[in-house]
């Protein structure tokens, strides 16, 4: 019946239906976690320029104190999750498959958890939209759905586009993840209030909370608290289908309008925010609390006790796993985020950051890893692709080395949702191929750009060299001319002197 019902709900083209396996952690409420021994806070936990550190080694910081300031228009502040002493500001492996070191602030908590003076409380009902946006920026809030785009920048879209709808994305279509589900069930009024505040900042009247049909309890909770700052919050149940949570596809499913390629949903007058972002905005504006912690789902058969944990930012994954009873076996995959788009990590020492909505330890049975077979052109990936691309052809062109051909056939419209690799009967790592191709094309593009730059530099240098040579030549010429002038004048004087001189000796001789 559920499937039938969800078929009636608005769904998107293509997409796949992976086993959600949310039952593992859906019923365990959000639980706090003891403060870990060390907190590692990368300066780049958002899209845009990394933040600029304000603290140095051996500085003592309080909870909520600003430790890194946003740099440039698209960036985000960073606050100390708890009070303690900064023991290092330097490179540390990033929570990323590459394991490359990134500048990170390492904080040793002192256990006192003393708050710094909080930001002044704001009554959003009568606060100016600009004030709200400034407070959100001050609190360092970013998109918590995984995109981590600085939320304040999205709130300032009101002056460039005519906005009329705010959609709160609680679709949470990734399997295993239940953090948004729990958040809605336990703190629905905070999410509704946050949504209302953001609606006021954006100047929109219509608020829609989109929830997948496999989370009825969350939908019910949201319907009970359906007033955001006086605006009615409409709860919209959408089909359980991956990738419903993708911004453009959710807008298509909820409002039926398709965002043009390379454009923002704001150009259709719609802004999409994650439900956790809304809750964070509520805390920041009403109570002046910056973004210090977030709900993380720790799940997968490899974890002894799957749970939803309110973890401080910077908590090492190892501590999080230990809190959830440790690993039952050596996991086949340890990853941050969901299984469809999540990033594997090399070691559990890396920290949880603002965009981490899940930590999964998957066993071999769950990943169903199998040998890659050749492509048999079955077309399952074409049917599954929500963006209407032809993944098998992109893969064939990439394998044959024709990256420009792949880009011409739509590679750059791929959102890397993972549906094609999931459904491919030959287990071909299509998304990895696309990531390689996009990276390579970007690299070639930047190299070409750099070549143009170096050509400009080379031309500037040769021009400067010639100018110097020219100036030298001119100076030499002038100098020669002066010398010639001097010599000529000296010669004249000598000539005059010669005329006067014969007169003098005669006088002397008389």
């Amino acid at each position: 019946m559920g499937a039938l019902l969800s078929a009636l709900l608005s769904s998107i083209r293509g997409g796949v239906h992976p086993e959600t396996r949310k039952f593992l952690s859906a019923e365990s409420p959000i639980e706090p976690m003891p403060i870990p021994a060390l907190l590692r806070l990368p300066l780049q936990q958002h899209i845009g320029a990394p933040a600029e550190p304000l603290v140095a080694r051996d500085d003592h910081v309080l909870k909520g104190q600003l430790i890194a300031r946003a740099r440039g228009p698209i960036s985000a502040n960073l606050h100390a999750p708890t009070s303690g002493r900064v023991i290092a500001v330097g490179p540390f492996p990033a929570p990323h498959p590459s394991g490359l070191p990134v500048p990170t602030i390492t904080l040793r908590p002192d256990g006192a958890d003393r708050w710094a003076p909080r930001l002044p409380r704001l009554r959003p009902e009568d606060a100016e939209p600009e004030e709200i946006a400034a407070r959100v920026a001050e609190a360092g809030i970013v998109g918590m759905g995984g995109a981590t785009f600085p939320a304040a920048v999205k709130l300032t879209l009101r002056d460039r586009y005519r906005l009329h709808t705010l959609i709160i994305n609680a679709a949470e279509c990734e399997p295993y993840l239940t953090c948004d589900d729990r958040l809605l069930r336990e703190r629905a009024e905070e999410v509704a209030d946050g949504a209302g505040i953001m609606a006021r900042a954006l100047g929109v009247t219509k608020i829609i909370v989109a929830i997948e049909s496999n989370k009825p309890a969350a939908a019910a909770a949201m319907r009970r608290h359906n007033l955001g700052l006086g605006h009615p919050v409409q709860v919209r149940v959408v089909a359980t289908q991956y990738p419903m949570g993708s911004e453009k596809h959710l807008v298509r499913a909820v409002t039926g309008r398709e965002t043009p390629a390379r454009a923002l949903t704001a150009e259709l007058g719609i802004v999409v925010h994650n439900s956790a972002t809304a809750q964070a905005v509520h805390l920041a504006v009403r109570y002046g609390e910056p973004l210090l912690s977030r709900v993380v789902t720790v799940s997968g058969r490899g974890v002894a006790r799957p749970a939803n944990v309110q973890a401080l930012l910077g908590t090492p994954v190892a501590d999080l796993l230990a809190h959830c009873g440790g690993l039952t076996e050596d996991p086949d995959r340890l990853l941050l985020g969901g299984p469809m788009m999540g990033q594997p990590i090399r070691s559990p020492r890396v920290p949880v950051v603002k965009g981490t909505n899940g930590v999964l330890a998957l066993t071999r049975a769950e990943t169903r890893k199998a040998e890659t077979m050749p492509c048999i052109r079955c077309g399952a990936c074409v049917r599954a692709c929500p963006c209407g691309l032809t993944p098998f052809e992109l893969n064939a062109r990439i394998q044959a080395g024709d990256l420009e051909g792949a880009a011409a056939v739509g590679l750059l419209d791929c959102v890397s949702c993972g549906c094609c690799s999931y459904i491919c009967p030959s287990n071909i790592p299509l998304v990895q191929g696309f990531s390689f191709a996009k990276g390579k094309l970007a690299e070639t593009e930047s190299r070409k750009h750099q070549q143009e730059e170096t050509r400009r530099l080379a031309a500037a240098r040769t021009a400067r060299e010639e100018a110097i040579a020219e100036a030298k030549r001119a100076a030499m010429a002038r100098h020669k001319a002066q010398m010639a002038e001097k010599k000529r004048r000296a010669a004249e004087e000598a000539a005059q002197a010669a005329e006067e001189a014969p007169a003098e000796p005669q006088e002397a001789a008389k």
Partner: protein
Amino acid sequence: MITAAASMSALGLGLGLLLGAAARKFHVKTPPVVDEMERILPGTNCGQCGYPGCRGAAEAIAEGGAPVTLCPPGGRDVALKLAEIVGVDCSGGPEISGMTDIEPQVAFIFEDHCTGCTKCFKRCPTDAIVGAAKQIHTVIWDACTGCDACVQVCPTEAIVLRSKPRTLQSWYWDKPDQPLAALRTGAA
């Protein structure tokens, strides 16, 4: 026999006149090829192709004396574009596919060896080296083209060519090899 010769020459003459008229009516001026080629070459006159600067290389290719794969910094893309202009069809040829894109090399100055003699930044074609007399020098990696002019001129050999470090933004997954698909045929 005369009629045969006469008819053929008449036919030939008629067609010739027709073509002459058509040639004049559809005349099109073709851009000088050398300028076009020079615009494609990197323009840093590094001399790795053995010709005096990029202009010299472009003229050499135009005369057909030089292969289109003569520009290592340009890599495959420049070679393919040059091949398209010259009309040489070697997209699958060994020397093009053999030209794997070399990792971009940049100069790196060992600070403890650098004596601040300013010899290198006088020679650098793109002003990529920053420094003053008696001061330690350093290289701006974005501006350096790896032409190793500075490496040869440094008295204390403090400069070495090294591939550019990868940052988190420029990192990407490597190409998935498909072992069972088939034996690779040596294509790139």
